[in-house]
């Protein structure tokens, strides 16, 4: 990156995500149509769980009523505490572990899931204060959680995930299915 093309516009400059993260996807999480999650995997194996742009929450001008990290009587993701370099104490999650429940103003409810196995490092508390972040910047400031997979599993966790092309394939099949006369 010695010399920069100063005529670059927003379309040419690779973003932080483009430079350091790989996008993976899970479509129709737990069988629920279009509840797609996007997992941003950093080159250091840390994963950021976000909503894919196709997720229902981000459609039809929905607004958010509440976000709840209390997923059961005994477990709140907000109480997750990790300490030290080895991140001891973080809740260990499996693919279908719920991260939070989001209720929209039109009374629709959605559960966001972990999508991968690993140790929960943090959940995004900024969206509790400013739920709009989730709607406006779902791929960056509106992230849901940060998860650290086990070192041995850092490659294998992507086996169950779709890459960008595969995901776009599935999405395009949905639109064509919808446009079919029933």
């Amino acid at each position, binding site marked *: *990156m010695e010399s920069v093309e100063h005529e670059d516009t927003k379309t040419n400059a690779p973003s932080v995500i483009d430079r350091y993260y790989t996008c993976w996807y899970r479509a129709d999480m737990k069988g629920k149509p279009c509840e797609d999650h996007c997992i941003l995997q950093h080159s*250091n194996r840390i994963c950021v769980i976000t909503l894919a742009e196709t997720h229902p929450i981000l459609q039809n001008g929905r607004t958010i009523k509440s976000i709840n990290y209390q997923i059961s009587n005994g477990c709140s993701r907000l109480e997750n505490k990790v300490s030290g370099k080895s991140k001891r104490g973080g809740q260990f999650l499996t693919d279908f572990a719920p991260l939070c429940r989001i209720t929209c103003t039109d009374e629709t409810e959605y559960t966001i899931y972990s999508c991968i196995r690993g140790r929960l490092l943090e959940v995004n508390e900024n969206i509790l204060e400013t739920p709009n*972040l989730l709607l406006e910047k779902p791929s960056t400031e509106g992230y849901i959680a940060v998860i650290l997979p086990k070192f041995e599993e850092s490659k294998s966790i992507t086996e169950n995930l779709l890459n960008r092309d595969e995901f776009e394939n599935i999405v395009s099949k949905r639109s064509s299915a919808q446009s079919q006369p029933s």
Partner: protein
Amino acid sequence: MDENTVMLPLKEKDKPIIQKLLSAGCCARCVLRFCCVSVQAAYRKQPEETLKELQMFINDTENDKCQDSVALDSRDDYKSKDAAESETSEDPPNKRAKLETSITDVQSEEEAAAVVKSKDGDSRVCVVCLGILQGLCGTTQAIKIAEAVKAGNYEFDTLVLSVSLPAQLCVREHSCWLYVKKEVREKGLVLDKDDVIQVKEAFKWIMQGMVTKELGGIAVVTKVSPFEVSVEFTHPETDADCHFLAATCPDCFKPTKNKQSVFTRMAVVKALEKIPDAKFLKHYPCPPTQPTSSCSPQVQCLHVSVFVAGRYNKFCRSLPQTPWVIDGERRMESSVEELIAAPILSAFRADGFNFSSSGREDVDVRTLGNGRPFAMELLNPHKSRFSKEQMKQLQETINQSSDKIKVRDLQIVTREAMSRMKEGEEEKTKSYTALVWTQKPIQREDISFIDDIKDLTLDQKTPLRVLHRRALAVRQRAIHSMSTRFLDSHHFYLRLKTQAGTYIKEFVHGDFGRTIPNLCQLLKTDTDILELDVESVDVDWPPPVPE
């Protein structure tokens, strides 16, 4: 007076000790040690001579009990003849008793015979020193040591000789001490274990002068020298001698994490201090058993570390600080530390190095200005004296070797100086220039307010890009001041002066909103950092070297 005629300051009370130890299989020099002889020259006598005199001394029944010390001269034939005669003499019993020599009622026929046998030459390996004070302690060994030193081709004025002995020597020493303890007590005297001259000391008394001679006069000092020549003795044959202590004093022997033996010298000494005499005698032979071989010596040279410091510039955006290796494969060619270290290692002829700096920058970041302070510990340098001129020359060599880095103020520093460098990492300020991209188009007026922001406090969560190897935490850091230089509608240069430990990249792009406030929020647009340069590291160490 040559060495062989030095006085052995032996006393009457030493006779039973000498008797018992010689018959037990101790060499002449070890016998001297147990007699607490602290005259260094006594140990430098030829062992055969020392043995002869010891034997003469104990067989000397003609000596008055009133005489305190005996001067022994190997040329005194009259005395030797007498000694020989008294062995086989048929003195009537009463005469012997009247003389009250050290030949006490304990002496038996066998002991006398054993003493006669050892007259023929001490070919047996000593049961205590395992040969260290016998054949392994003399001109041959001194020549070997000198050769090892010369082979290393070191630069030095003095050297210190250090000796490492196998732990079982303590056990054998303890056994011999118990063996003569009874004798000593019967005389109403006390032989404190600490009064016995240590094998190490005797070895050094003998060898230091010899090594000096073989090295043509280089002083072998006793206390401190930057150059250490260590002689390590091992004796696998008797390593098991210590093992019984693990059962009798288990709390002295903690299992080690490495595969190394748990029977360290320290642990064995501790156990011997604790174990009661009766218990020791139950588990270990007294006197110790006769070994069949001598110790094996190994000579190693080590020069104390030398520290070289300076400041470095980095002009390349694809150079890591340290070698970047994943799964045994190098991911990026070379590194800052390798480029700096190579010429220095070669000039100082060192075995290795430890590189540290006052903070560090990412692979893609340049370090401009007067550079970042660094210091290198050079391990076992074979050459350690360098003049200011030579250091300047070395600096020039480094700078000629690569256009990716440059060093300045290269100098030799003390070990203590390293802490000055590390304090910079925590306390001092740094300055940067970043090339910022903005998503929305901007004009000059849009960014001018940034120049007025002073002492902006950031809350930075551990950036995601380092979170895999750092603890998760929130760090408060200050940006003291900023200034901008407009470039075009989507780019500008941002200069920052910040507290040490501030993550600049994350301030610019926000790191998923985990650094607050961040430039995206201030400018109300997505921003990203395209380039970063370190302009200055405000640590005033090492002292500048005038050109």
